[in-house]
């Protein structure tokens, strides 16, 4: 859905990064994972971050979710700054759900217990939340596996559980770190379309990291291209394709144009590294 620029201008963005820098110091080297990143993501946007490995894309959403703190700069969620030293407030963190690249289900908990974990941590005990767990399990077709352990189910199922776990507390923002990267193409495409369906129904704000240019164009309304050495945002590209997006759009002219454009932007970064 395209938001008119006037509305953009007046509305406080849902997520805002102001000159955010992240430097990692190991005893061997200093790595600038992110340098002076500026981002504005509005409520209900579906935004994608793409770029080569090591360009800081994961770091950006990890800082947003308070998994790590920026070295300098400010991050705002709904206009409220995330504390630079203290832990994020539970009010703020509850707005977000994080989907990890590597499946990290807890092996000692059943599928259902894993999905319910955020509810336990946030102290959400109402029956409506239990019903939500049921609903989400049914949505991904895993209700009958709810008492199984992660060691007993396939990796595609594990990935799906990672996704619904991040949604169980009904967060306004979904942060997805290459969520379908480890899956085969068919499953990935299927999940992409399912995700778009969920997004269109729930109107959540989604930040989707991927190294797959096609996937980024298919899913997002805006794509941020990132570069390495140092990690920084190189370009912002609006994706003006009609919604709902369909898999067969991949062959359309406009889609291919975007693909060329983004690939060349990423290519420029790689070439500049060689220089």
């Amino acid at each position, binding site marked *: 859905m395209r938001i008119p620029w006037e509305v953009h201008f007046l509305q406080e963005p849902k997520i805002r990064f102001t000159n955010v820098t992240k430097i990692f110091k190991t005893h061997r080297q200093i790595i600038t994972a992110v340098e002076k990143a500026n981002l504005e993501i509005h409520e209900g946007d579906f935004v994608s971050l793409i770029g080569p490995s090591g360009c800081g894309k994961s770091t950006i959403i990890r800082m947003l979710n308070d998994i790590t703190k920026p070295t300098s700069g400010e991050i705002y969620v709904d206009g409220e700054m995330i504390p630079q030293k203290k832990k994020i407030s539970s009010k703020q*963190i509850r707005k977000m759900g994080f989907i*990890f690249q590597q499946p990290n289900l807890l092996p000692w908990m059943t599928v259902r217990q894993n999905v319910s974990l955020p509810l336990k*941590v946030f102290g959400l005990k109402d029956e409506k939340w239990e019903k939500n767990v049921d609903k989400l399990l049914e949505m991904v077709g895993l209700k009958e596996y709810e008492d199984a352990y992660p060691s007993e189910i396939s990796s595609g199922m594990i990935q799906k559980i990672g996704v619904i776990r991040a949604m169980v507390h009904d967060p306004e923002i979904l942060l997805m770190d290459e969520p379908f990267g480890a899956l085969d193409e068919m499953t990935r495409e299927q999940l992409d379309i399912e995700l778009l369906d969920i997004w269109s129904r729930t109107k959540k704000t989604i930040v989707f990291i991927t190294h797959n240019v096609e996937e980024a164009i298919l899913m997002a309304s805006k794509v941020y291209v990132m570069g390495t050495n140092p990690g920084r945002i190189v370009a912002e590209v609006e994706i003006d394709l009609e919604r709902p997006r369909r898999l067969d759009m991949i062959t359309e002219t406009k889609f291919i144009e975007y693909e060329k454009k983004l690939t060349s932007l990423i290519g420029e970064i790689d070439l500049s590294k060689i220089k």
Partner: protein
Amino acid sequence: MKPTLSKHKKKDFKPAAIIAPLVALALLYGALEIIIPLSGINRIVLPTPTAIIKVIAEAFAADIWPHFIFNVKVIFFGFLIAVPFGMLLAAICSQFNIIVKAVSPYVILLVVTPMITLIPLIQLWMGSDPDIRILVVVIQCTPIIMLNTLTGFTTVEQSKLDLARSMGASKLQTFIKIIFPNAMPQVFTGIKLGCIFSTIGSVTADFVFGMQGLGFKVQQATKYVMTEVVYGSIILIALIGFILYKIVALIERRIIVWKK
């Protein structure tokens, strides 16, 4: 298609796991019964299994049982104190990294130093009360449980800690929901080692303190050339350790249900 869930695992009970060792035991027993008399080995060196059983059974009530039950008491009590104590120490150490750094060389020294050299010191400091042997078991057993539990507490995958962070979990929540369950396999490794060390500690204490216990019985019987009693006592000691180990293994299987 219904998935095969772990609740079905109890039905995967394999009788072969119990029958096979029993058959092996019976074969060994039979073999010894035949070979020993045939080979003319003196009963002082190696009595037949039946002779061992006969002598032990006859002497059991008066001569063996009090010592046996004494060791059971010492081992079980020592073990039951050492387990929570070791785990508590590990929990405390895991919170204060500096304590770990300061203390761990000494803990390792304690584990490595043979107990048999330290027990006379303990006897010197604390006297000859038989119950001091429980302290010996605790000293022998606690460090190994603590070290393993500590390893369990501090070896958590970063991705799981990130998960906790992404949900804004407090330190306590992270410990209860992630660190503690994650440590369980390593904790049980420590506890199983503790079973072994408890048994060793108790018998070693018997050797040094004397007067009571199956360890003492072994010494005494060797002196009086009552070889059947020697063998019998050794077997009984091993049995105590074995039963303790099996109990722990059973509890482990109940708690750690998620490993394939």
